[in-house]
């Protein structure tokens, strides 16, 4: 990993140039009292000291709704695959979200390769940033280990007037040189390390992820699931905002002419009541408690066991999004520990 640096002013200039070059550039912008990833129209919009965005950046690789195939109705030979576009550069991804993208990369390339996702991923350069604002629900430090570096092309670290840059990949190198970032002065990597070390989460998972997976073993019958589920709306907010969730539904739509149409996939969520419903109205995960448990096991055990990666990256979005205030993985684990 190379270390470079750039003044904040020059970085903004770089962003402005990028926008002017007519490439689609995405960054974090203010949305009311909150934040969201959006296409940048001016470099001033970019907001790098944000708390957390409402939705994670995965929406650019696994869009909320995405056309997979186009066809003429009734004509099976007319299926034709479509691959959407993704932004050229995404700026400002927190390490947790970066680790989540690494997990999605893994899942969509493992076994049958999902080129709809992978094609978009290959097209984008990801510029991460270490957070400077505290977010009361975040616990990334205790979850992600080094996973973020499996997806990031480079990371920015706020050093006051400058950004330190950790250059991770070839793409990262290219974009750093496009920024005219300079090779770090001596001691830059220590400075970066110090700045990173200063970032503390306000909450933390009481386990390492390996320990978490082991801890959850045999917790299926804990009374907590049922108790907590009494407050659950099965509204799906916790999974819809989650950067590591990638469940989807598939639907055929047709034009008003009924002559042509599209097969689309759209985000779905395992917390929704009918998620595991099959014909005959048999529901394999009928109780809210079972769904809540499935979510936490998936985040805290199944994915860790399967990929050796964090199934939850501690971004804290679910805790923020849950109107019932019951979704926080940390709270749940604390409760299970009692």
């Amino acid at each position, binding site marked *: 990993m190379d270390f470079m640096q750039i003044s904040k002013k020059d970085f903004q200039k770089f962003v402005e140039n990028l926008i002017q070059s007519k490439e689609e550039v995405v960054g974090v912008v203010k949305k009311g009292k909150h934040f969201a990833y959006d296409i940048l129209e001016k470099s001033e919009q970019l907001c790098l000291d944000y708390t957390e965005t*409402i939705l994670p950046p995965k929406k650019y690789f696994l869009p909320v709704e995405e056309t997979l195939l186009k066809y003429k109705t009734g004509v099976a030979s007319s299926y034709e695959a479509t691959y959407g576009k993704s932004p050229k550069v995404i700026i400002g991804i927190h390490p947790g979200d970066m680790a989540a993208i690494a997990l999605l990369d893994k899942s969509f390339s493992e076994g049958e390769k999902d080129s709809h996702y992978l094609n978009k991923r290959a097209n984008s350069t990801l510029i991460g940033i270490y957070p400077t604002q505290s977010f009361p629900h975040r616990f990334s430090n205790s979850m992600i280990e080094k996973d973020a570096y499996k997806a990031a092309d480079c990371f920015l670290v706020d050093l006051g007037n400058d950004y330190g840059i950790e250059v991770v990949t070839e793409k990262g190198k290219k974009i750093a040189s496009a920024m005219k970032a300079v090779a770090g002065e001596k001691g830059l990597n220590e400075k970066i390390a110090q700045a990173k070390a200063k970032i503390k989460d306000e909450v933390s998972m009481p386990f390492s992820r390996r320990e978490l997976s082991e801890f959850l073993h045999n917790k299926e019958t804990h009374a907590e699931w049922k108790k907590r589920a009494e407050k659950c*709306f099965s*509204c799906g907010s916790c999974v819809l905002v989650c950067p590591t969730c990638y469940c989807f539904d598939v639907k055929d739509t047709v034009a*008003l002419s009924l002559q042509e149409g599209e097969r689309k996939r759209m985000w779905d969520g395992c917390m*929704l009541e009918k998620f595991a419903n099959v014909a005959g109205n048999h529901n394999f995960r009928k109780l809210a408690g079972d769904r809540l448990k499935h979510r936490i096991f998936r985040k805290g055990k199944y994915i860790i066991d399967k990929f050796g990666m964090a199934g939850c990256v501690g971004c804290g979005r679910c805790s923020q999004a849950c109107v019932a205030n019951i979704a926080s993985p940390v709270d749940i684990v604390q409760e299970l520990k009692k």
Partner: protein
Amino acid sequence: MKPKVAFFDFACCEGCQLQIANLEEEILGVVALVDLVEFREVLTGHAPEYDITFIEGSITRPEDEERLKDIRKRSKILIAFGACATTGGVNKIKNLRNLETVRKEVYQDDWNKPHLNTAPTKAVDEVVKVDYYLHGCPINRNEFLSVVKDLAMGKVPRIPDYPVCVECKLRENECLYDLGKTCLGPIARAGCAAICPSNKSGCEACRGTVPNPNKNAMHEVLAKRNLTVEAIIQEFTMFAVNPEVSK
């Protein structure tokens, strides 16, 4: 053969039929798919039988029940169209109060005249069998189009059974609870693209609730926001969706 389609209205504001006119050019696509045979608000004409009938409005008088039953007999598929039809809509607010008081308040001395009689408001499925529901006050035009397309293709239309929060999240809205407001999104049926929260206004559940609304949890959440029990009941009964929700 194009399916014969009819629209009928009962007690309502006719805002849902208006959404058909609001389809603009697309209405031409619709009339290419179906044969509009009866639609009093936009065309002059009648037919004896229908393949698909849309019923707008709620049922508030005995004679309307008879009219509806007759329409049902002549319809292959009957669709409750809009909140008044699917749940009773705002018209059901009337049921929450004493009917005699209500009648006196509006008609004063004449309240007891026979033709001003009113029965408790009913949703369409409280009178006849309903095949499909197009919820909303008013209905969502895109949902209407997709139901028409589905039926024209012989597909069973799928009406959302998940809460408004889903669509609200997909639109990346700021949650109203994070802005200090309240919202029925967690228990309300989706399909509207979360239009109210997207306009920074709490969902009023005009599409009724999801099949298993967690009403106790909703109560608890609203009470935590310092809403009195009375205010909570008012929230729940704006569209009188499910009077027992407030119990």
